[in-house]
């Protein structure tokens, strides 16, 4: 951008030097004198009632300092929003394999493990349900909490979108598609497992360092379950080794377990998870079964979409209420329809529970709708990319749920960009003519729209503080966390741009509930827009004071001030350094400290009507994947990838591109190899030898195109990128597989068996991996 010093220019990530030298300390790297090691006893049953729990024998084990159960928490440690159905430690019942029952703190990890062995816990297995289709059967065992509305307690939630009357319109359509799709649970596979360190304070409170996403939510839960006033609980954000939505609930439980053990023992307590425990106990991306019916005119105009989805929330609600809403809003894809109904239902089962994961419902539904769109294009005999261009949302269009898109709509441009960059027209034609042979090539496209931030889900705001320190450096805070995304660098660059100072002068302080301001959760790709606007406002407020001081010092009106680097220049053309301006401001009695708080414009969603304005703005993007498929083995290689994203504006280019590359890689794993499969409630892959994520040899070089359709309310026009970078990757790859092979894989992952045989081969280890993973001594 012209006239900008830092925004959109290559920059150094603010925390990178510490990371490339290994100096960054994650929770597992923290050691304090007298620190105890904590571990949890976890359920080996998917559904059971606790008939007997006696933890006192653990206290006789040498080295054990404290043991806790649900009885050590207020209201048995119940928490959860919006559904309060979860416990810090299981209360009376366990509902999934890996649910924590009791926690021990001891001098060594080995003593903690010995303490767990000494606990007397008797679980009586209960009938369980593992198939979401059977969860609402009248005789299905109850998993969810009692409901007052008379509905089945295993029914959790439903969300709808309503436009017109698809049931009447669909049979009128000359071309109709009806297809079923499904996605499996996906593990976040952050390389750093969960962890927390709690330190008791002399006032009877606790300080918790946590590898979590949202320290303020953690503090709220901690204060509630520990029965402490909020000012006695301080949560300090530890560096996070990857999250992708995955460091919420389980880390809040670990934080509360450590805090209770610290308060009980009077000593610091750290808990870090071995990989198996992490995979077994952590929540996953939900599995979803979907049915898509589309109707179109022979000329290629889409008319009707009827989308139904059944989301398996597993044992607890976690974020599924919100996930199902985002799924419903995005289920029809970024297209115009005359009639559209979406129904997303979510239910409880005794599988591991589902929570937030990059894309948050959209990743799941996009897989279905973007394949259905391809299948419809096939049925019409149209090129799938041209078909998308014909029907896609453009500026001024109204979405299926009734929101007029008034600015920042770059979908058609994204589609054109990947079409050109990938050589779409030539390659599609060439691959259509390829001779029959064992290795076949294909090219596939998928589009995405993705609402920025929380939307009508909740109050949407963020806050920042900024102040000039004694050494003339600038301390900036945000209530939002950088768990690897680059948000800290984005905030720094925005503040530097506003202040006209070098980014190196700014220190972004780690989020800390005592020093930063509550900003809602760090989720939903909201950091750049919400946190960025807050940082921008804070910096503007500070800038006003500095401009005032500069005008005073240089004896001129503010509109005569110029900047050269950090220095101010007045009519005398004698530069005044940053330090001189700061000194002068202080001599005037100014306190060089400011706040910034930004609230998103109000929008309204009518959940009964299934209509409204869902999000303040939308990200748009398109992916093209090129694959080779070995027809003898079903092995698919992604050999090329083109990703175009309308990000509004780019703040930190390497960061934005890194989000796209990483998102594509996660989508590639989701498409081809990742499967957190539960058999009778037991996770079948508990470490990286069986839960496979892409290696450097599985991901091709990716061409990333960042398009900028500025959004008036975004900082410097920016929207978001992290989540939508992943969303369309899997359907693009599966569309490419269909192009290559003529066979469509409608269930994820498109592994060797599904590509070769058309279906998966099921195999159960009888719970062995989970039992070994939960039993290991250290």
């Amino acid at each position, binding site marked *: 951008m012209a006239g900008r010093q830092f925004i959109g220019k290559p920059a150094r990530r603010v925390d990178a030097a510490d990371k490339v030298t290994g100096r960054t300390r994650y929770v597992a790297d923290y050691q304090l004198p007298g620190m105890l090691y904590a571990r949890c006893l976890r359920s080996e049953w998917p559904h059971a009632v606790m008939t007997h729990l006696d933890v006192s024998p653990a206290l006789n084990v040498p080295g054990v300092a404290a043991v806790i159960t649900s009885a050590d928490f207020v209201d048995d440690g119940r928490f959860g929003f919006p559904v309060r159905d979860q416990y810090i430690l299981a209360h009376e019942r366990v509902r999934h394999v890996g649910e924590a029952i009791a926690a021990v703190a001891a001098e060594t990890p080995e003593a903690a493990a010995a303490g767990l062995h000494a606990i007397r816990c008797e679980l009586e297995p209960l009938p369980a349900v593992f198939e979401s289709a059977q969860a609402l059967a009248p005789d299905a065992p109850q998993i969810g909490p009692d409901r007052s509305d008379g509905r089945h307690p295993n029914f959790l939630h439903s969300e709808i979108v309503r436009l017109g009357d698809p049931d009447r319109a669909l049979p009128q359509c000359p071309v109709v598609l009806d297809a079923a799709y499904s996605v499996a649970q996906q593990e976040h596979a952050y390389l750093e497992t969960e962890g927390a360190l709690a330190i008791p304070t002399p006032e009877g409170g606790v300080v918790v360092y946590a590898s979590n996403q949202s320290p303020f939510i953690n503090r709220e839960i901690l204060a509630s379950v520990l029965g402490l006033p909020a000012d006695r609980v301080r949560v300090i954000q530890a560096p996070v080794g990857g999250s992708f939505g995955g460091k919420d609930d389980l880390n809040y439980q670990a934080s509360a377990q450590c805090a209770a053990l610290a308060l009980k023992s009077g000593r610091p307590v750290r808990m870090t998870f071995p990989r198996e425990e992490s995979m077994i106990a952590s929540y996953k991306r939900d599995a979803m079964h979907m049915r898509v019916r589309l109707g179109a005119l022979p000329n290629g105009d889409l008319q009707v979409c009827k989308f139904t989805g059944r989301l398996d929330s597993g044992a607890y609600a976690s974020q599924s209420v919100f996930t199902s809403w985002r799924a419903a809003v995005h289920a029809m894809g970024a297209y115009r329809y005359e009639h559209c109904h979406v129904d997303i239902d979510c239910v409880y089962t005794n599988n591991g529970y589902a929570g937030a994961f990059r894309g948050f419902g959209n990743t799941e539904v996009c897989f279905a709708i973007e394949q259905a769109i391809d299948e419809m294009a096939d049925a019409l005999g149209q090129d799938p990319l041209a078909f998308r261009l014909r029907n896609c949302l453009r500026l001024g269009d109204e979405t299926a749920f009734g929101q007029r898109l008034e600015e920042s709509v770059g979908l058609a441009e994204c589609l054109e960009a990947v079409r050109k960059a990938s050589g779409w027209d030539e390659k599609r034609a060439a691959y259509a003519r390829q001779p029959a042979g064992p290795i076949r090539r294909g090219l596939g496209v998928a589009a995405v729209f993705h609402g920025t931030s929380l939307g009508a889900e909740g109050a949407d705001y963020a806050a920042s503080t900024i102040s000039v320190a004694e050494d003339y450096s600038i301390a900036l805070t945000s209530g939002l966390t950088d768990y690897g*995304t680059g948000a800290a660098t984005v905030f720094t660059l925005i503040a530097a741009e506003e202040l006209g100072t070098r980014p190196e002068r700014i220190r972004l302080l780690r989020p800390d509930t005592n020093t930063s301001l509550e900003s809602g959760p760090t989720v939903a790709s909201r950091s750049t827009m919400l946190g960025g606007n807050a940082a921008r406002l804070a910096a503007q407020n500070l800038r006003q004071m500095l401009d005032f001081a500069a005008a005073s010092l240089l004896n001129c009106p503010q509109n005569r001030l110029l900047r050269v680097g950090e220095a101010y220049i007045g009519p005398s053309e004698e530069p005044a350094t940053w330090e001189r301006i700061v000194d002068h401001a202080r001599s005037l009695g100014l306190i060089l400290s400011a706040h910034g708080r930004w609230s998103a414009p109000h929008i309204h969603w009518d959940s009964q009507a299934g209509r409204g304005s869902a999000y303040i703005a939308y990200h748009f993007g398109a992916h093209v994947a090129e694959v080779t498929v070995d027809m003898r083995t079903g092995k698919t290689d992604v050999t090329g990838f083109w990703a175009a994203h309308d990000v509004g504006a780019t703040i930190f280019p*390497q960061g934005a591109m890194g989000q796209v590359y990483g998102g594509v890689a996660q989508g590639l794993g989701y498409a081809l190899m990742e499967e957190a499969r539960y058999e009778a409630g037991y996770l079948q892959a508990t470490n990286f030898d069986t839960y496979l994520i892409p290696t450097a040899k599985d991901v091709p070089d990716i061409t990333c195109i960042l398009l900028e359709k500025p959004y008036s309310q975004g900082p410097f026009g920016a929207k978001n990128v992290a989540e939508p970078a992943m969303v369309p990757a899997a359907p693009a790859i599966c569309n490419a597989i269909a192009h290559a092979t003529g066979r469509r894989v409608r269930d994820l992952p498109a592994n060797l068996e599904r590509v070769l045989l058309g279906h998966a081969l099921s195999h159960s280890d009888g719970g062995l991996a989970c039992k070994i993973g939960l039993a290991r001594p250290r």
Partner: protein
Amino acid sequence: MLIQFTLNGRPVSVEAPAHLTLLTVLRDYFHLTGAKEGCSIGECGTCAVLVDGELVNSCLMLAPKVAARTVLTIEGVSPADGSLSDLQEAFIAYGAVQCGFCTPGMVLAGEALLAQTLTPTREQIRTALAGNLCRCTGYQQIVDAIAAAGAQRKEVN
């Protein structure tokens, strides 16, 4: 047992039980926490270090195996003056760092490769990184950084 070896250029000796892994000894005895525990079964590479210049997973190597050998961890990669190596600088310049948990292992994998060749192809770089998982970056900027550092070293030499 007493284990003597060269750690980041300095001769060291440590008394530790023989069944401990090199990773445990580095982290708990030498307080070098740059090598991480990611999986403990040799699949993720966050614990990678160089032993006699070869990339190994320290979670799968018993500590006594490094007796009389040289071990380089991420803490020993930077020049003594506290600045960054050219490869570390390239990681920053190319945006190869996100959450940072895989980064020490990635830097060491890059060093092991550049010790073999300064002009690796992108495919060779990807092969050299195949034992180091990254969940954030999609590997692309890591490949870029290693290629650039190799080219730069080639120019200097």
